[in-house]
């Protein structure tokens, strides 16, 4: 069986999963199967079949597992967002449509040779810095939860950090391919780029107050630097610099300080000062209440979960118990409604995605392609780790999205671009000479 036929089979299975999940959410909501639920499933399947046909035409030798995995992940996201808020679910569906459109466009545009991107590497580098700093431009940036990650253009809210990540990976793939031999010598002056990018990451923390995106982008940089040079020393030095820098900023920036305090000590036995209402409160009722509620949500799921549509997210009078449920805390919603089984299944999808992505990097022929695939895949894994780890109190909680699952347009589009990149590299590597 060829990769494309495997992909077709996978997409069909994903369609069935999506249809079942949406139907089950509708049943819980309306107590009956409505025609709309079935048609949602059919539309979902049709969209991915269309994407499959585009892949068949433009990248026939590409890996066959990634598109079905993406379909399953977006199905998770759509079902959960629809369950939490039908309006958000509808918008999310629109974003998946746009994302698939961008995906198809990228495949068509770069079907002959994506490696032309390498020649625009510095443009991508500049774009990455520009996009990262965009939210801190006065008048444009929007503070959500005290973190500047969003910009508003008209009615659209846009999270440029997601696209910055892709641009950064493209820049690094090109730059490191060019400089890897020089850097691998490990002379003192070769630490220059490391220091420059470290400085940029710290600047991002200062500007946006967000530890998460800085950690993500700096982590991607270190990983790609390691792949390019094979020098573990760079990684060690980079990590030390990051931790040291973050520790300094921890004391200097209240927002960062607060996030870390919440992470280390979400529950207090004594009342501490609460910045939200200016009174003394237990921390679990004030600063850390999001994180704590998220853990309660996860704990309430137990092994088998409450079932889709049966979880508890609102109080008896309808007030929301966990804020930002569709974006930051979508994983706690999944863990409650689908339980350990469902959450583990979701994480398994991410693991297989990562394993396939790294396999593409291994099989790629040239340095740029290898670095690109490894960078994209590692970025995908690290982003999943940072957001889910934050929700699980493994690392400080930050406001980045769960790839393909969280509600949010920019994130969906950026991750479809990431998928297109991996498929293009894979297609090239597997093409007969």
């Amino acid at each position: 069986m060829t990769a494309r036929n495997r992909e077709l089979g996978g997409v069909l299975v994903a369609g069935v999963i999506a249809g079942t999940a949406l139907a089950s959410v509708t049943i819980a909501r309306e107590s009956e199967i409505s025609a709309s639920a079935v048609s949602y499933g059919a539309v979902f399947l049709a969209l991915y079949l269309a994407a499959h046909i585009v892949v068949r035409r433009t990248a026939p030798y590409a890996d066959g597992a990634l598109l079905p995995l993406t379909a399953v992940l977006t199905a998770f996201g759509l079902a959960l967002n629809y369950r939490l808020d039908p309006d958000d679910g509808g918008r999310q569906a629109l974003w998946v449509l746009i994302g698939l459109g961008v995906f198809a466009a990228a495949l068509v545009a770069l079907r002959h040779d994506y490696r032309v991107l390498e020649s625009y590497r510095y443009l991508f580098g500049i774009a990455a810095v520009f996009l990262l700093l965009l939210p801190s431009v006065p008048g444009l940036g929007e503070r959500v939860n005290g973190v500047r990650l969003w910009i508003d253009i008209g009615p659209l809210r846009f999270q440029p950090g997601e696209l910055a990540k892709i641009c950064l990976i493209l820049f690094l793939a090109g730059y490191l391919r060019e400089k890897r031999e020089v850097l691998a010598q490990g002379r003192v002056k070769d630490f220059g780029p490391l220091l420059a990018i470290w400085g940029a990451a710290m600047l991002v923390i200062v500007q946006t107050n967000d530890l998460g995106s800085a950690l993500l982008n700096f982590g991607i940089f270190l990983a790609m630097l390691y792949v390019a040079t094979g020098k573990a020393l760079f990684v060690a030095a980079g990590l030390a610099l990051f931790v040291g820098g973050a520790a300094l900023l921890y004391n200097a920036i209240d927002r960062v300080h607060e996030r870390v305090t919440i992470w280390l000590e979400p529950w207090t036995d004594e009342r501490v000062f609460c910045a939200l209402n200016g009174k003394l409160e237990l921390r679990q009722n004030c600063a850390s209440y999001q994180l704590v509620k998220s853990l309660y949500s996860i704990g309430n799921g137990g092994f088998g979960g409450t079932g889709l549509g049966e979880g508890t997210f609102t109080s008896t009078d309808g007030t929301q118990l966990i804020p930002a449920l569709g974006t930051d805390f979508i994983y706690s919603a999944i863990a409650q409604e689908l339980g350990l089984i469902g959450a583990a299944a979701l994480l398994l999808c991410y693991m297989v995605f990562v394993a396939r992505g790294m396999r593409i990097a291994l099989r790629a022929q040239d340095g740029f392609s290898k670095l690109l695939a490894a960078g994209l895949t590692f970025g995908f894994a690290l982003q999943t780790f940072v957001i889910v780890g934050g929700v699980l109190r493994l690392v400080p909680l930050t406001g980045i999205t769960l790839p393909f699952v969280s509600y949010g347009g920019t994130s969906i589009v950026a991750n479809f671009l990431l998928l297109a990149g991996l498929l293009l590299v894979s297609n090239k590597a597997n093409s007969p000479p």
Partner: protein
Amino acid sequence: MNGQIVRLTYVSLALVGVLVVMTTYWQTWAAAGLADRQDNAIKRVADFSVDRGLVFSWKPRKRLARNTERKVERKSLFFRRYPYGSLAAHVVGYSTVERSRTGLERSLNDYLTASNASLSTLVDKALDEFRGKPVEGNDVVTTLDLDAQEVALAELGAQCGAVVALDPRTGKVRVMASSPSFDPNLVENNFAQISRIEADCQPAAPLLNRASAGLYVPGSTFKVITAAAALESRKFKPESSFVDPGYCTVYGKRVNNFDTSSPFGTVDLETALTYSVNSVFCNIGKTLGAKRILDTAKRFGFYERPPLETPTDERAPSGLYQRRQLYYPKQDPDVDAGRMAFGQERMLVTPLQMAMVAGAIGVGGELMEPQAVDKIVGPGGLILLRQRPALIRQSVSKKTADAVATMMRLAVERGTGTAAQLSGYSVGGKTGTGETGVPGANTTWFIAFAGRDEERPAELAIAVVLQNQSGTGGATAAPIARAVMQAILS
């Protein structure tokens, strides 16, 4: 570069793999701990979709807590109603969305919501969930005598205090009343009304279960323990005689009897307990030393939380307290044993503990585990838990217990506790007046047991405590004890 990519693959997979581990941790290991947290709004609200088990009194069998069903966004939610209002508020407690839970509603939440893991209920629960039917909880039958409970609260009236009555043969708690009480129906939506409740003490603290969590100076009721310790030590006999000068000197200071005007002269231990002579117990205390008396107190359950089914933090251990902490002296001279022997010197006790003491004396020294729950019944009538009487330990020898019982009977027959006499029953009791030095602010006590006759073990034990009193325990608390005992025994 492939070597690096392979290593990076391991790192990436480990990053996601560790998330699986952490999710497992929160959903299995830590899940019970998270569910138990008081601020867990998710679990609290989720529990409202369960058709919560009812709570019954023992006699007459009435519903102390029932449910009203309300549809919220197509989901059935079950809200609690308490038909008897403030009558059993402290034992049953409340279950609300806003203020969490107290009492049995909190400690038995797993049973009431059927989230206790027994194979049969697990299957039923899974079936209910599968059919989309609300899960049915298990019913709790308490041991409370509702009529006597009503008498106790009425007798307490606007006074601050508590009454605990239990069957000393089985440990079953018949009355647990704390005054002022509150209406648990008001907790959810009208809490301000509860915080406005006033009584003869400041703060009124209506939510506090004074019966098991209120700590009071035991006053002369502690002499029961001192007398038991004295007899157990074999240094004293009931007929050991003492000369009462009307006071006792400890650390060079005079400790007076309650009434210093007429010293008793030469008295024996039996008479000393009957008339509550401080100087005698003061001297016994000095002879025995603090630790020996405290060890006897421990045999009666002091220094541990009485094992009732209510939440842990609604039960306080009795004993010496120092800076709000339970304190056990390292050596005898750390504590003024003379004053402790008649219930002063930082000794603080709960009414529940003193009812246990009176009960153990009444049944020949057997200290039974107090129980407020009789049984727990599943939706199909299956009995999931039947509380069997459990012996904590033999507190003191039968001989000692019977001797102290005789002294207590004399106290009711002709001593300080005559107000508690009950026709047809043999009552033994001990009064107590914990002086605070402020007029009208005494803590008064009466503890007692009652049986058909002196030969048979007592059927009932009781402890009554009142705050801010100007009279003595015999005049204020003993009549209440009598009324409640009559209500239970009739």
